[in-house]
């Protein structure tokens, strides 16, 4: 009989305990994976704004809790535009608005018509709004489909009835699900005249992007340049807190899980002392006994991981349907989230079973056989 078969039989022989341990692992894995997915989902939603525009990098105000709270004034935008090496600097105002229950955090982008092309917005139907129009809007094609609107229809937003002048597409799915307004109009609706949220910068051909980024942030220390999603995640304090909470929860889950597993395994192995005495007496090495117990832990880790991942998927999908998170949280299941979950389960079971396993294996066969 192989050790693996014995592992399975031992766990099957104590079904309730095995299920309890696997559930403890599953809940820890679920917590870690769900928090990781929520963190990366929120980051993905936030960074999506960055990807709407086709730029080499994005500039935002430094030290804001939420990147969408960034405010950059018109003079600063002009300075950026005139910086050597900058081909174009498109200032956009990004706001969110609750349109209806299904769209509680709808993205609205204020941008000048002349900047639409550099920004990567392609008009699929109709035409652009005019620069100073107050009741005109263009919809991303996904948003248009969702609202059932066409060119010429009316779209109620920002407390006004806006005529849909065009249907557009962008390189980002979030852009396709957004509305585009003339910049002054959206600034007016939100009472932030002359303010933009982000500046999308394209550099001249052949000029190193990092050099331009450094030049701008050196001259404008109140700004930060973001090139990757990771940089975006570090800049947005809310995301930093979410990620810190996820990391803290993961560590806590591992520690609490390891204590639960260790405690249960100690009790279980205490009851099996005679069994280990018998195995030692028939010639099992101490290493093989440690392997048997660790194998049981590993088996539980695999089962717990599978159950935990399934639970995490269910929990995250339920979270995305919560009214408070609808449209904000997009389930972003990544391989790294699943790997983190499995690593958590392994770490928990390794820490939880190592001491009980070594303790069981190091007993003298005589003591173990005499155990009542």
């Amino acid at each position, binding site marked *: 009989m192989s050790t693996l078969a014995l592992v399975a039989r031992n766990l099957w022989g104590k079904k309730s305990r095995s299920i309890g341990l696997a559930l403890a692992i599953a809940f820890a894995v679920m917590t870690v994976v769900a928090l990781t997915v929520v963190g990366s989902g929120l980051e993905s939603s936030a960074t999506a704004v960055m990807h709407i525009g086709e730029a080499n990098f994005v500039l935002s105000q430094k030290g804001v809790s939420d990147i969408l709270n960034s405010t950059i004034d018109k003079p600063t935008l002009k300075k950026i535009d005139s910086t050597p090496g900058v081909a174009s600097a498109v200032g956009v105002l990004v706001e969110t608005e609750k349109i209806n229950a299904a769209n509680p955090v709808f993205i609205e982008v204020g941008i000048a018509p002349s900047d639409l092309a550099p920004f990567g917005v392609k008009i699929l139907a109709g035409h652009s709004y005019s620069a100073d129009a107050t009741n005109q809007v263009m919809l991303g094609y996904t948003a248009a489909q969702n609202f059932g609107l066409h060119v010429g229809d009316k779209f109620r937003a920002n407390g006004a009835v806006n005529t849909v002048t065009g249907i557009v597409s962008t390189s980002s799915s979030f852009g396709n699900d957004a509305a585009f307004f003339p910049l002054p109009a959206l600034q007016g609706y939100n009472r932030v005249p002359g303010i933009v949220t982000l500046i999308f910068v394209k550099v001249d051909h052949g000029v190193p992007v990092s050099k331009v980024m450094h030049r701008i942030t050196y001259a404008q220390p109140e700004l930060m340049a973001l090139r990757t999603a990771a940089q975006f995640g570090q800049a947005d304090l809310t995301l930093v807190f979410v990620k810190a909470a996820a990391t803290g929860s993961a560590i806590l889950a591992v520690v609490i899980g390891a204590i639960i597993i260790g405690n249960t395994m100690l009790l279980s192995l205490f009851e099996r002392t005679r069994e280990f005495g018998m195995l030692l007496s028939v010639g099992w090495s101490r290493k093989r006994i440690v392997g048997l117990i660790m194998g049981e832990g590993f088996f539980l880790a695999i089962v717990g991981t599978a159950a935990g991942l399934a639970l995490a998927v269910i929990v995250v999908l339920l979270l995305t349907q919560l009214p408070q998170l609808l449209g904000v949280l997009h389930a972003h299941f990544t391989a790294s989230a699943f790997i983190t979950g499995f690593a958590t389960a392994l770490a928990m079971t390794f820490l939880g079973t190592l001491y009980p396993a070594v303790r069981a294996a190091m007993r003298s066969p005589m003591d173990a*056989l005499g155990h009542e």
Partner: protein
Amino acid sequence: MAEAYQVDERGAGLAVEVVGLTKVYSDGNVRALDGVDLQVAEREFVAVTGPSGCGKSTLLHLLAALDTPTSGTVRIFGADLGRMKNLAKYRREEVGLVFQFHNLLPQLTSLENVEIAMVRHEHGAPSHKEKAAQLLELVELAHAADRKPAQLSGGERQRVAIARALANDPRLLLADEPTGSLDSASVKVVVALLTRLREQTGTTIVMVTHDDSVAAVTDRVIHMRDGRILDA
């Protein structure tokens, strides 16, 4: 390790050679064995008897390398247990152990309980399953191969434990009160089995018992009292 098992000149033909074996338990007050000298020839069937606490089980445990002596030497087929580094290998390959309480794993069948003691499978040898089945046949329990310990009588469990002890073809079988917890009918079956085993396989058997009728079937009876052998 193979060299270590070679019988040297002094111990040629001896399965067990014990010299000045003493065991004092850690608190220092209990002298379980007190300078025991003993020799058991290969293929011999020996019974060790004596009152409770006389040291007979302690002697057996020291022969099985389950415990270490305070002083003295134990040679098994010429190899000094005190000098052996891998006692697990010795227990696995040289001796078979039968206890008063069978110590079978309740979650495993009879066949699996025998298999669990087997060493790594060698090419050309029968599979573990086949060999375990043969051993169960030897102890006349082929019909109970798929039964778990809870479904067996006391005597049947002890026969499974004997089959497990024979899993790796040991040259020495050590039995600690193998009939101690059995009814008289089962005692007869187990004793007959051990006798037959010695005849069929030539295994050397050292059996601890307090039952004179059981001891009577062996080649030689060793009496112990107060940690000493009275006659050998």
